[in-house]
C-alpha cells in the first residue's frame, strides 16, 4: 500500500514540477519564437506558438543596427568592473571587521550594515548630484562607483571569515605575512567557493541593473543592455521580433556565465549556509 502511495506522490510531484517548468519557461520560449519569425507575423491576428515561417532576420537587423554590440560591451565592462571592485572592497572590509582589532571596530561595522536599511532609490538624487559635480555623468566611473558598496557581500564574507580558525592567520603572521598577504594567500583561497558565488551574483545584478544607468547615462554610446533595449523599442517603433532578439542577445552572456559557473555558486551558498 505504501509503495503505491509513494508512486502516486512521485507522479503528483513530477506533474507539478513540469507545470512550474512550463510556466517559467513559457515567456522565454515565446520570446524566442517571436524573435525567429518575420516582423509582420508578430502582429498577426492569428495566434501561433511556433513561427509560420522561420527566419533569423530579426537577429541580423538587431546586430547590424550597430549599437547592440556597443551596449553588450558596456554591460560587460560595467558588470566586470563592479564585480571586481565590490569583491576587492568587500573582502578587505570583511577581513578587517573579522580579523583585525581596532578601536571602534564594532561601531564601524554597525554603520556599514546600516546600508541594509537604505533603499538605493533613496540615494538616487544625492548620488546623481555627486556624480554630476565630479563630472562623471555618462562615464564608466559614474556608472560603476555607486554600485561597488554592498553591505550584504561584506556581511557574508565576514561571517565566513569568522568561522575560519584564527590559527591560520597567526601561522601566516609568524611566517612573515602582513594583513593583505594573509587575506590574499590564505583567506581568499580558503573562501574560494563563497567568493565565486558572491562574484557571480554581483555580476548578474550589475548586468541587469537598469535604474542607476538610466539615471546617470544620457548618451547612446554609454548605455548598457537594459537601458539600450528601451532605446531599441523607441528607435524601431513596435518591432517585436527585433525587440525580442535584442533582449535574448542581451541576456545570453549572463545566462551562459551562470550556466558555466552554477556549480561554484551552489557550492558557495552551501558553504555559507553551513556557517554560524
Amino acid at each position, binding site marked *: 500500500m505504501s509503495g503505491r502511495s509513494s508512486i502516486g506522490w512521485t507522479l503528483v510531484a513530477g506533474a507539478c514540477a513540469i507545470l512550474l517548468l512550463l510556466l517559467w519557461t513559457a515567456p522565454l520560449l515565446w520570446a524566442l519564437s517571436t524573435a525567429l519569425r518575420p516582423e509582420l507575423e508578430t502582429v498577426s491576428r492569428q495566434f501561433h506558438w511556433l513561427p509560420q515561417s522561420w527566419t533569423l532576420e530579426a537577429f541580423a537587423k538587431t546586430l547590424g543596427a550597430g549599437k547592440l554590440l556597443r551596449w553588450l560591451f558596456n554591460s560587460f565592462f560595467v558588470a566586470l568592473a563592479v564585480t571586481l571592485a565590490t569583491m576587492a572592497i568587500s573582502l578587505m572590509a570583511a577581513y578587517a571587521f573579522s580579523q583585525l582589532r581596532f578601536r571602534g571596530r564594532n561601531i564601524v561595522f554597525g554603520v556599514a550594515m546600516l546600508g541594509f536599511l537604505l533603499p538605493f532609490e533613496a540615494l538616487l538624487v544625492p548620488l546623481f548630484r555627486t556624480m554630476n559635480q565630479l563630472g562623471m555623468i555618462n562615464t564608466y566611473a559614474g556608472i560603476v562607483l555607486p554600485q561597488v558598496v554592498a553591505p550584504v557581500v561584506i556581511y557574508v564574507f565576514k561571517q565566513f571569515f569568522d568561522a575560519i580558525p584564527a590559527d591560520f592567520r*597567526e601561522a601566516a603572521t609568524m611566517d612573515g605575512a602582513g594583513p593583505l598577504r594573509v587575506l590574499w594567500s590564505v583567506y581568499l583561497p580558503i573562501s574560494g567557493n563563497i567568493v565565486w558565488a558572491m562574484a557571480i551574483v554581483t555580476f548578474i545584478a550589475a548586468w541587469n541593473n537598469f535604474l542607476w544607468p538610466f539615471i546617470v547615462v544620457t548618451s547612446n554610446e554609454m548605455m548598457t543592455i537594459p537601458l539600450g533595449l528601451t532605446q531599441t523599442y523607441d528607435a524601431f517603433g513596435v518591432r517585436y521580433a527585433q525587440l525580442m532578439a535584442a533582449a535574448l542577445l542581451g541576456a545570453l552572456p549572463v545566462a551562459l556565465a551562470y550556466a558555466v559557473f552554477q556549480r561554484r555558486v551552489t557550492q558557495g551558498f552551501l558553504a555559507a549556509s553551513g556557517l554560524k
Partner: protein
Amino acid sequence: MASVRLRDIRKRYGDNEVIKGIDLDIEDGQFVVFVGPSGCGKSTLLRMIAGLEDISAGTLELGGVPSNTVEPSRRGIAMVFQSYALYPHMTVAENMGFALKLAKVAKDEIRERVGRAAAILQIEHLLERKPKALSGGQRQRVAIGRAIVRKPEVFLFDEPLSNLDAALRAQTRVELARLHRELQATMIYVTHDQVEAMTLGQRIVVFNGGRIEQVGTPLELYERPANLFVAGFLGSPRMNFLPADLVGSPQGALTLGLRPEHLALADGAGAAGSSVEGTLGLVEYLGDVTLAYVQVEGVEQMVAAKLAAGTPLPALGARVALGWDPARAYLFDAAGAAM
C-alpha cells in the same frame, strides 16, 4: 640559537591580570616545558613570546635583544600550533616553503631546505599531498617541518600532541626528543600533560594561576616539590594528601604527602605514625602494576597505593593498612609550602 629571558612579564585583559609577573631564564639550546592546568596562562605566555599577544608589562629578551615590540616574523621564532594550522589549499611542500617564499628566498634554496627538513622528518613522500590527505601524525610532522625550514632561533610548541592518540603521542615524543638532540635548538613546549613534561623537558616550569610555582629538572620537581600544587600535579596517580599534626610542634594544621609508589600493604603492626588504616574501595589492574584505593576515615579522597602486579589483595570492603617509609613522606605547612 638564542636564549630567552623574561623579566616581570605581565598580561592584562582590562582589569583582569592573567600573567602575574613572570621571571624566567631559558638558556640557549635548552628544552623547556611549560606545564600546568588549563587556564593557568602557559599558552598565553607562549603567545607573548611569539609576538601573537601584546606584553602588558615587563621585558622579553631574545638572544639578549629586547623584543617586546618586534614583529613576530622578525623574532627568529617558529611556532607549531595545536591544530597544526596547515594551509588547506597548499601542498605539503608549499606549506613548508611559504615563509621562505614570503622572505623572497630563491626557489632553488626553498626546494633544498624543504627537502632537507622533509628528510629529517621522513615525509619526502608526502610533499605533493594536501593536508586533508594526511593522517594526524603526518600533519604533525609537516607542522614541525614548516618550523624547521625557517631555521629559527627558538622553537615554540603549543600542545602539539594533544590531537593525537596515545600510541602516536608516545611515538612522537620520542621523535621530538631526537629532533632536539639533532638540531640542538632552544625549544619551549607547552602542555597540560605531565607525562609529556616529565619525558621531554630538560627543565620544567610549573604554572598555576598566572604564576610560576616551581622551575627545575623533572626529577627535582618530582622528588622535591616546592608546594602542594607541584606535588599534586606531577605523578600519576597523584600524590596522596592526608591531614597531619607534627607531635610536639606548634605548626598547626599540616599536610602529609605520600606518593602511591611509596605505599605498601602493612600488617597493621608498622611503626606508629607511618601507617594508616581504611577500607579497600577500588582495585585497578593495569598489568604491570596494581592500583589499590583505600578509603581512610577523615580523608575525602581515597588513598591510592601503587603495588606490584600480582600482590594479593583482600576483597573490596575489607579493612587494610597502608604503610610507608617516613623518609619518603613529604610535609607541607598550612600555606602549602614544602617543609
